[in-house]
């Protein structure tokens, strides 16, 4: 999505030069948004009359859940760009995003479980959404493991891209399957996570800031990791050349 109209940044050199300028700004902005959003949410919002202070968890749960899914979507787009246009930066960006996505998924899972615990009375309920995130986590693991396992970087990029596309389809199928399955077992989920729908302004503004913080954090981390991956590839190329004499 991000790079669709910006093909020239798919050139590693240009990418390095541009991100070199942009990255500090994004990082600082990400830090500011995160701190403001979370501090605001944690210290300066009232408790919900029904859920008490657990409502404060949404400032972590909603943004991380959002970014866990968006990170995968970004990887999917980057994989498609790599397969179609063979831009190296695209493949490396997909690789760079995966561990960040895993982290967000873990945060979403943990905060979801903690949030639900007082409501459900159990640490882990097979709530459809929570279960879907667990499955997403497994997809991330497989993706990262495949990257690590294949030696030739271009082969790895190709294979992981194919996996990402196929995995996306199956992740979507799993989402619907899990919904279906849970209906069949219990009478619906006991706790809906749809806080967004009837949320009061007083919760909404800090949440928006926190979401912006997570988005910026994701962008900053992915840019930085992509830069590292580009350097690693360059290092690999140089070492190859040294060996060839």
């Amino acid at each position, binding site marked *: 999505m991000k790079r669709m109209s910006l093909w020239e940044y798919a050139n590693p050199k240009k990418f390095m030069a541009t991100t070199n300028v942009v990255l500090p700004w994004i990082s600082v902005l990400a830090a500011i948004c995160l701190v403001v959003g979370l501090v605001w949410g944690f210290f300066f919002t009232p408790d919900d009359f029904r859920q*008490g*202070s657990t409502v404060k968890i949404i400032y972590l749960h909603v943004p991380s859940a959002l970014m866990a899914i968006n990170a995968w979507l970004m990887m999917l787009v980057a994989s498609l760009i790599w397969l179609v246009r063979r831009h190296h930066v695209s493949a490396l960006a997909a690789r760079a995003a995966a561990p960040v996505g895993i982290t967000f998924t873990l945060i979403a899972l943990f905060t979801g479980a*903690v949030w639900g615990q007082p409501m459900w009375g159990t640490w882990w309920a097979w709530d459809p959404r929570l279960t879907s995130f667990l499955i997403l986590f497994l997809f991330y693991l497989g993706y990262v493991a495949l990257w690590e396992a294949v030696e030739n970087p271009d082969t790895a990029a190709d294979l992981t891209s194919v996996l990402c596309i196929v995995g996306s389809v199956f992740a979507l199928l799993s989402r619907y399957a899990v919904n279906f399955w849970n209906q069949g077992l219990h009478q619906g989920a006991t706790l809906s996570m749809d806080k967004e729908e009837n949320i009061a302004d007083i919760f909404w503004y800090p949440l928006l800031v926190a979401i912006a913080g997570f988005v910026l*954090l994701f962008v900053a981390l992915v840019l*930085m990791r992509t830069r590292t991956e580009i350097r690693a590839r360059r290092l690999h190329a140089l070492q190859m050349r040294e060996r060839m004499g």
Partner: protein
Amino acid sequence: MPELGKYAVWVLSAYGVSLALIVAIVLQTVLRARRVRERLDKAEARRGNG
């Protein structure tokens, strides 16, 4: 410190674990960036000399 009531443990653990995870991924990213950068600089220097 805001009054967290009977859910204090849950809320605090959610924040604690989440922040720890964020710090971990940021640290990992920065450290790896630094390590790769150093190795690359060395390789570039070798290339420049040789």
